[in-house]
């Protein structure tokens, strides 16, 4: 089997999709950092007392409160950024995960012997060549199946003649079938 030849039917994952994902990720992380800035700004921008001693004590005491302030602000940032990134991941990656899930269902159906329909993804879904390759395989199998059945039916037509000719034609058809199936390995 040769290396990936998916470029023949177009890219598996479009460049526009990747750039869109990176852009949304950039906006998402920038938003998270912006929120962190706003929290820290409001925590640190309280005016210092006017007198010398007041400023000194305020700055010394700020060191004590700095850790909880930072902890809360970083926690808020992490929760917001994680939440929005997770939502973004689910929203963006479903264009790959959805078709994969659908293909898995179809492969399970195929294995169980149920009628297999041709696969089509939505226009904006990624990995479209996968559906084309699967349809090509199933199409070839169906074409071969029809040809094998036609060969057998053709042999059966000779059964209107005598028994010997019928049997000979059937055996000839079976040999043809066996030869034809040899391409599957």
């Amino acid at each position: 089997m040769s290396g990936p030849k998916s470029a023949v039917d177009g890219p598996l994952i479009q460049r526009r999709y990747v750039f869109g994902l990176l852009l949304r990720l950039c906006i998402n992380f920038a938003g998270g950092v912006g929120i962190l800035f706003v929290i820290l700004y409001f925590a640190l921008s309280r005016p210092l007392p006017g007198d010398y001693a007041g400023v000194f004590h305020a700055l010394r005491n700020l060191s004590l409160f700095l850790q909880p302030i930072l902890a809360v602000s970083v926690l808020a940032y992490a929760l917001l950024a994680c939440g929005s990134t997770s939502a973004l991941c689910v929203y963006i990656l479903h264009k790959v995960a959805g078709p994969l899930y659908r293909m898995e269902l179809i492969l399970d159906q195929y294995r169980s012997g149920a009628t297999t329909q041709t696969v089509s993804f939505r226009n904006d879904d990624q990995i479209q060549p996968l559906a084309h390759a699967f349809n090509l395989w199933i199409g070839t199998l169906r074409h071969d199946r029809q040809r094998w059945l036609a060969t057998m039916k053709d042999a059966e037509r000779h059964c209107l003649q005598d028994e010997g000719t019928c049997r000979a034609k059937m055996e000839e058809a079976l040999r043809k079938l066996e030869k034809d199936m040899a391409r599957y390995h």
Partner: protein
Amino acid sequence: MRNRPRLRLRPRIRYVSPRFQGPAVLAFAAIVATGGAIFWKLVDGAFQRVFLHASIRGHYPFDSSYDIVRDLLARHLAGLFVGVFLSGSVLVLLIVAVTRFGIGKAVDSLRASAEGDLSTPTGSTPVGEIGRFGGKIDSARSHTLASVLKIRSEAAALASGGISPEEFRLRWDELKHRIRRIAP
């Protein structure tokens, strides 16, 4: 009665596949959490030093503590953004590369199947959802190969002769039935 336009049935595609999206979400969350933790550690240390230094300087030309750390905070926030975004971008490119490789192999294997090669393994990445998907394709291909080989051996056995006409007819019909079951 009004004739309603017939709705075109769309293929049902689920939006959430935890096996595929879950690890990606966790990886992004880990990047954000790590970035936040590093930011916290660095900013805490730097701010402690700066505020201590500012308090003992004895000259206070600022209105709020924000004025003292404005540049430092901006630098660290920029560092946090760049670090998290670059790590996230690398992760995105990694996911895309793994998906391209794994699905590319699956596409190749399906194309090879159309040419009759049902035995060469797909060879997609052995881990994760893509690897499992490659296993499913291989399973479907080997199932088909087993059916075809069974039909082929039965055809060879029937063609070799020495079977009574009644038994031949029965096995012939069974063979047709088996062929009909390929890619129904």
